[in-house]
């Protein structure tokens, strides 16, 4: 049952092509029915997101199946087949398993560790199941891919650290204040970026929120959006004394929060930490303030360098994730082999059991006077012979499946025992 994964992704295909080829649910359903119904593929899952369009399939002739599948996709979406074939990649067998695991674990994503892809893979799988395009092989592959993705998520840190400026700021706040619940936040200036950062803080339980802005109306508008309180600009210093986290984003040409002001504020607030998140350019908070005790100040460049460090961290963690994926690929190869040989083993047993039962019946018909002991002995004898005969071929099948070379042996067993067409 040759397994393959073929497609285009952000790695090699331009966005324009990905956009063109990406198909919505209805189209995917149609294509899946055509492909599996037409008998080109025995099983198929189509994953279509803005970053990748991929077909996972099981087919007797993978090369042909791949070509048919993408010809279908291209025709549906009105894309030139040649344009797609230039950038189309194909993974077979172990490489296909590895690819599925890496995609689901977000190791193949544009931003490593991004969380959406797993949901998209799950949706694609559910869609294919709905179209009855999923058989035992892809079922095993995908359920395992979900388990691997979960392990990668919990056992490595590829998704743990913030890769956006606003999340990096929230993460820093959490490293200063253990819990953000009940922390007072002051917004100075009412930009979009500061609103986003403030929303993240509010989600973590930060409360209350104060908004200071030169334009009173805008301050009130922003305060409403965040369920906070607008504070007149003149009361900035009072507000500073009361809060824990300050987000500044004014368009002012010079610093709005000076070192002198913060020095006065710090005296009144003791050693409670004060965290400035300054996302304005030019900066709103004088750089000197972080020399004051328990005052921390991060400007946009500082936050960006934190983000860069976090991305490097994700890349390091990704290497550990790759090793984990590699181990899981080996495990699944063995299981998929079992999936393929089990039906043959079952029909082999049934075939021999049929023969044995028939022969025993005949023998007993000729021995009407046989005692129950004799009958039992005949049953045991015949069962013993069948089991002895079955032992060698079954062992051979299991061994060859573990070595990945079971297909020719399956064919031989079918031929020798007359098991009919294998499915």
């Amino acid at each position, binding site marked *: 049952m040759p397994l393959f994964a073929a497609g285009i992704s952000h790695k090699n295909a331009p966005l324009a092509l990905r956009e063109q080829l990406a198909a919505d649910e209805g189209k995917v359903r149609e294509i899946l029915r055509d492909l599996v119904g037409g008998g080109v593929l025995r099983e198929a899952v189509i994953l279509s997101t803005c970053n990748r369009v991929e077909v996972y399939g099981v087919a007797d002739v993978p090369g042909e199946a791949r070509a048919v599948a993408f010809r279908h996709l291209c025709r549906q979406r009105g894309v030139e087949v040649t344009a797609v074939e230039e950038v189309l990649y194909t993974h077979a067998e172990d490489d296909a398993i590895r690819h599925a695991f890496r995609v689901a674990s977000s190791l193949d994503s544009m931003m490593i560790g991004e969380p959406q892809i797993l949901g998209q893979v799950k949706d694609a799988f559910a869609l294919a199941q709905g179209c009855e395009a999923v058989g035992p092989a892809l079922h095993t592959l995908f359920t395992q891919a979900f388990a691997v993705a979960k392990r990668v998520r919990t*056992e490595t*840190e590829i998704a*743990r*650290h913030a890769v956006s400026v606003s999340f990096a700021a929230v993460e*820093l706040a*959490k*490293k*200063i*204040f*253990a*819990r953000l619940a009940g922390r007072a936040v002051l917004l100075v200036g009412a930009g979009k970026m500061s609103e986003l950062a403030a929303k993240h803080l509010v989600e973590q339980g930060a409360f209350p929120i104060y908004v200071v802005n030169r334009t009173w109306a805008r301050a009130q508008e922003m305060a409403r959006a965040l369920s906070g309180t607008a504070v007149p600009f003149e009361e900035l210093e009072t507000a500073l004394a009361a809060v824990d986290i300050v987000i500044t984003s004014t368009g002012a040409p010079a610093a709005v929060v000076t070192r002198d002001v913060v020095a006065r504020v710090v005296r009144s607030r*003791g*050693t*409670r*930490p004060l965290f400035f998140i300054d996302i304005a350019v030019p900066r709103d908070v004088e750089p000197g303030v*972080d020399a004051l*005790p*328990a005052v*921390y100040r*991060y400007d946009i460049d*500082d936050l960006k*360098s*934190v983000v860069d*460090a976090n991305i490097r*961290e994700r890349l390091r963690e990704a290497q*550990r994730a790759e090793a984990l994926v590699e181990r899981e690929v080996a495990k699944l190869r063995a299981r998929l082999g079992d999936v393929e040989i089990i039906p043959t083993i079952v029909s082999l047993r049934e075939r021999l059991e049929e023969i044995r039962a028939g022969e025993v019946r005949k023998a007993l018909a000729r021995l009407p006077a046989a005692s129950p002991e004799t009958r039992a002995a005949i049953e045991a004898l015949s069962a013993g012979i069948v089991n002895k005969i079955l032992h060698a071929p079954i062992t051979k099948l299991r061994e060859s499946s573990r070595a990945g070379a079971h297909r020719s042996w399956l064919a031989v067993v079918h031929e020798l025992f007359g098991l009919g067409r294998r499915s």
Partner: protein
Amino acid sequence: MHPYLQNIAIIAYVCAMGLALAHLVQRQAYVHRLAVLATLVGWIAHTLALVVLAIEIGGPPLGTLPNAVSVVVWVVVLLEMLVERQSGVTVLGAFVLPVVVVLSLKSSVARPVTLAPALGNAWIWIHIALALVGIAAFVLNFAGAIMYLLQERQIRHKRPGRFYHRLPPLETLDRWTYRTLALGFPFLTTGLILGAVWARTAWGSVFAFDPLAFFSLVAWLIYAGTLAGRAAGGWHGRRAAYFAIVGFAALVVTLGAGFFLPGRHGA
């Protein structure tokens, strides 16, 4: 039997320290599991060693200062394992185990001289036991202070390094040092008072010079000052952490004095 088990314990602690430090920079989960395992092995060997010792001498193994310090180490390791398990701060071992190793080595090289013959009164055991629990709490206090300063430095210098994600938040660490201080201080205080009372009844004077008593008074004053500063003066953060380190240094000198200088606590 006892020295043999004691050595196993020390070797296991040294391994655990190495692994815990490796985990700090290298973050492989299995390194941490090995560190925890080595700590546990060390602690079990240590427990057996103390039990065997207690049977050999027919009483609590607190009669000599090295033995008493060995009990401190035992308490510290137990607390470290419990706290690490409960709080999920997997890097704690990297900060506590070095202290454990230093104390274990120190107690194993010191001459095991029996304490003053006057020991026999139950009060003296209470004096020792209380002082030991106090010291154990201050080992954790010290580890918390070091973690605080490391984390504070990274955040202040805007260069979140390797430890940034793994060390707890500043506020947690600050609360940690406060709690361990508040826990250790009453034990140390009561221990010292009992010691002084005992000294008066046994030797007729509280102030007769004894190096260990002298330095422990210094350490007590530092901790008392820190506690007062925190409770009344609103001290926090770096200042409190620096004091925790100075106080612990005084405690280490105290034990060193007990080990190596002549006085009533040994030699």
